[in-house]
C-alpha cells in the first residue's frame, strides 16, 4: 500500500431500518485520504456524507466494508481497542452550540482532551496555553464557559479540542455552515494554517461547493449514498463529468447577472433535478476513469 495513504475505505455499506422501511444510506463507497491533504465529501442533505463521517470513527457501525486507518482495519475492531486509536482521529461538528458541554469551563474541556493523550501530567497547562493561542483566542478565555463566546469563537474552541490530541486525521462535518460569511473566512483560514503547521489530513464534509473549492485538494461528490464522481478540485470544478455534479455546480449563485443564467433558471432545475436523481439511482457500480485521479460512476 502507498505509504502516503493514511485512510483507505473499501466498499463501505450502511443500511438504516425503520419498521419495514429500508434506506441504503451508504452504497458501496470507496476512497482514500493521503497524508496532509484535504479530502472533501460534497452533496445535498440526505446523501450520506455525514453518515460516512460517523462510520469512520465508529459512532455508527458499518454493515460491511473495510476502513483501514494507518494499516489497521478498524471496521471490526472492538470498542476497547479502537479507543486507543481514537486520539489520532478527531471530529469537528457542525453545531458549535451543541458540541461543547455548557457546564465545563474551556480549561476543563481542553484538559480532558490533552490528558487522554499525554503521559506527563505536569505540563498540561503549558500545552493548553499553546493550544488556545494557536486558534486565535486569549489565555484569559480559559476561565470562561461556552455560553460567553460567539459562534465563531466556539468553533475555534472545538478546533483547539480536536487538535489537542495531535491527531493524524480530523473529520470536519460542516464546520462553517452555521457561521456568518466573514467568520467563515476566519475559520477556513485557521484550518488551512493549522494544517500547514501540523500536517494533519482533513476529511471536509460540506454542502457548500464554494467552500469546498477553497479548502480541499480532492473532492468526492455524493448522491443517494454513492460517490458519483471523484477527482482533484481542479478536475471537478473545471471538468465536471457527471450530470449530478454539473447540476450542483450550476446552482452556485454567481453575483454577475447575465442573461444566460436567467434562461438556465427558467427551464433547468425542475426537470433536470429529477433526471439527475433517476440517473444516479439506476447507475451501476462501474467506474469510468477520465484521468488517473478522476472517475465518474458509469451508467448501465
Amino acid at each position, binding site marked *: 500500500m502507498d505509504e502516503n495513504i493514511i485512510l483507505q475505505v473499501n466498499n463501505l455499506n450502511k443500511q438504516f431500518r425503520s419498521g419495514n422501511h429500508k434506506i441504503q444510506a451508504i452504497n458501496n463507497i470507496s476512497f482514500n485520504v493521503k497524508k496532509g491533504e484535504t479530502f472533501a465529501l460534497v452533496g*445535498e*442533505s440526505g446523501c450520506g456524507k455525514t453518515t460516512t463521517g460517523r462510520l469512520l470513527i465508529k459512532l455508527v457501525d458499518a454493515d460491511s466494508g473495510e476502513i483501514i486507518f494507518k494499516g489497521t482495519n478498524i471496521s471490526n475492531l472492538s470498542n476497547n481497542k479502537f479507543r486507543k486509536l481514537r486520539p489520532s482521529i478527531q471530529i469537528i461538528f457542525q453545531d458549535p452550540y451543541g458540541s461543547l458541554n455548557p457546564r465545563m469551563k474551556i480549561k476543563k474541556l481542553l484538559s480532558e482532551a490533552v490528558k487522554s493523550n499525554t503521559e506527563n501530567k505536569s505540563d498540561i497547562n503549558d500545552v493548553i496555553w499553546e493550544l488556545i493561542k494557536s486558534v486565535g483566542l486569549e489565555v484569559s478565555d480559559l476561565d470562561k464557559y461556552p455560553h460567553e463566546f*460567539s*459562534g*465563531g*469563537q466556539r468553533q475555534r474552541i472545538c478546533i483547539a479540542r480536536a487538535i489537542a490530541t495531535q491527531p493524524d486525521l480530523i473529520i470536519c462535518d460542516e464546520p462553517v455552515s452555521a457561521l*456568518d*460569511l*466573514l*467568520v467563515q*473566512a*476566519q475559520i*477556513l*483560514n485557521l484550518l488551512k494554517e493549522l494544517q500547514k503547521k501540523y500536517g494533519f489530513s482533513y476529511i471536509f464534509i460540506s*454542502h*457548500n*461547493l*464554494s*467552500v469546498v*473549492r*477553497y479548502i480541499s485538494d480532492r473532492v468526492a461528490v455524493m448522491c443517494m449514498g454513492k460517490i458519483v464522481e471523484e477527482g482533484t478540485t481542479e478536475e471537478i*470544478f473545471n471538468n465536471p463529468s457527471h450530470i449530478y455534479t454539473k*447540476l*450542483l455546480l*450550476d*446552482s*452556485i*449563485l*454567481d*453575483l454577475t*447577472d447575465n442573461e444566460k443564467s436567467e434562461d438556465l*433558471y*427558467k427551464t*433547468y*432545475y*425542475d426537470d433536470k*433535478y429529477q433526471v439527475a436523481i433517476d440517473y444516479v439511482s439506476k447507475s451501476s457500480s462501474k467506474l469510468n476513469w477520465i484521468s488517473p485521479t478522476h472517475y465518474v460512476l458509469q451508467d448501465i
Partner: protein
Amino acid sequence: MCKLLNIENLTIVANEKNRKVKITDNVSLSLNSGESMGIIGESGCGKSITALSILGLNNPNINIIDGNIFFENICLNKLSSGNLRKICGSKIGMIFQEPMTALNPVFTIEQQLSEPLKIHLKLSKSAIKSKCIELLESAGIKNASAMLKYYPHQLSGGMRQRVVIAMAIACKPKLLIADEPTTALDVTIQAQILHIIKKLIKENNMALLIISHDIGVISKLSQEVSVMYSGEIIEQDSKTNIIENPMHPYSEKLINSAKELNNGCNHLSVVNGSVPRPEENIMGCKFAARCEFCRNICKEKKPSLIKKNNGNGYVRCWKYINDQNLY
C-alpha cells in the same frame, strides 16, 4: 406618488431584566409597489427584527420606541392587533425561514392553505379548493390535488417551502416579505425556490422585501440593497453599485469575501474581531474597531447616513464626509 412601504427612523429595543438593549437604530427604508429591496447582514444585525416588526410579530419584550412603519399611508405600529390582522395576510404576505416550523403539523395542507382564503377573500367552499390547487401549481408543485390531503411531515423541505410560498401569495398581497427563504434548503432546491419567487412577484406585480445573509440570494431577487451592521443601515444603493462598487469598508469586505469564495481564489481576506454585542455602548462608528481606515473621529462620533457623491445611494462612513473642520 405615495410609497407602498415606508419605514422611518425605526428604533427597536429589547427589554431585558434590568436594562434596555438597542437592537436597531434609526433604520429607514422605503419601497414602491413592484420594487424589490434586499437587506443583507450577519446574524444579530437586526435585519429579521426589522422585517418582523412590520407585521407586529416581534416578541412582546421587544418594543418600537421610536419611528413609524407606514404601509399605504397607514401607520402599522399604531394599529390595534385586530386591524393589523386585516392587513397581514391579505395585503402583506410573509415567507419564513424555517419551512419545518412555519406549518402547523396537525393540519393538512388544504386546511392551512384555505384559511387565508376563507378569512380574507371569503370564498365559497368549492372555490377555495380550486384556488388551493391553482396556488400550489403556481408555486411549482405538480400533483397539487393529491398534495392537499398531505400533512407537513410527509413533505420534503423544498416542498414545504413551496407550500409556505403558496400561503404567502394566497390573497395576492401587494408586499411580500421573505425572511431567509432558502437558508434551510439545499443548493439545487434553493435555485428552484428563488426562480419561483422571482416568477411570482413578476406575474402579480408584488413588491418584495428579502432578508438574507447571502449576497448571492439577494442579487438574484432584488434591485435595491441595504447593508446592515449591528442594528444600523450602513449602505443603501442599487444592487449593481453594491456588488460592483461597495463604498463602506464593511460592505466591501462582505462582498469581496463572497466574490473570492465564488471565484475560487487561494486566500480569503479576513476581517479580524467580531460584531460588537448590542449591549456595548459605542460612541462612534460601530465598525471602527475592525476597520483598516479607522481614524480618531471614527471612534468619537457616529457618522450619519449621507448621500453618495455619484448616484442615489447612501453610505454611513467618515471616509466620505468632506468636512475639513473634523480633522
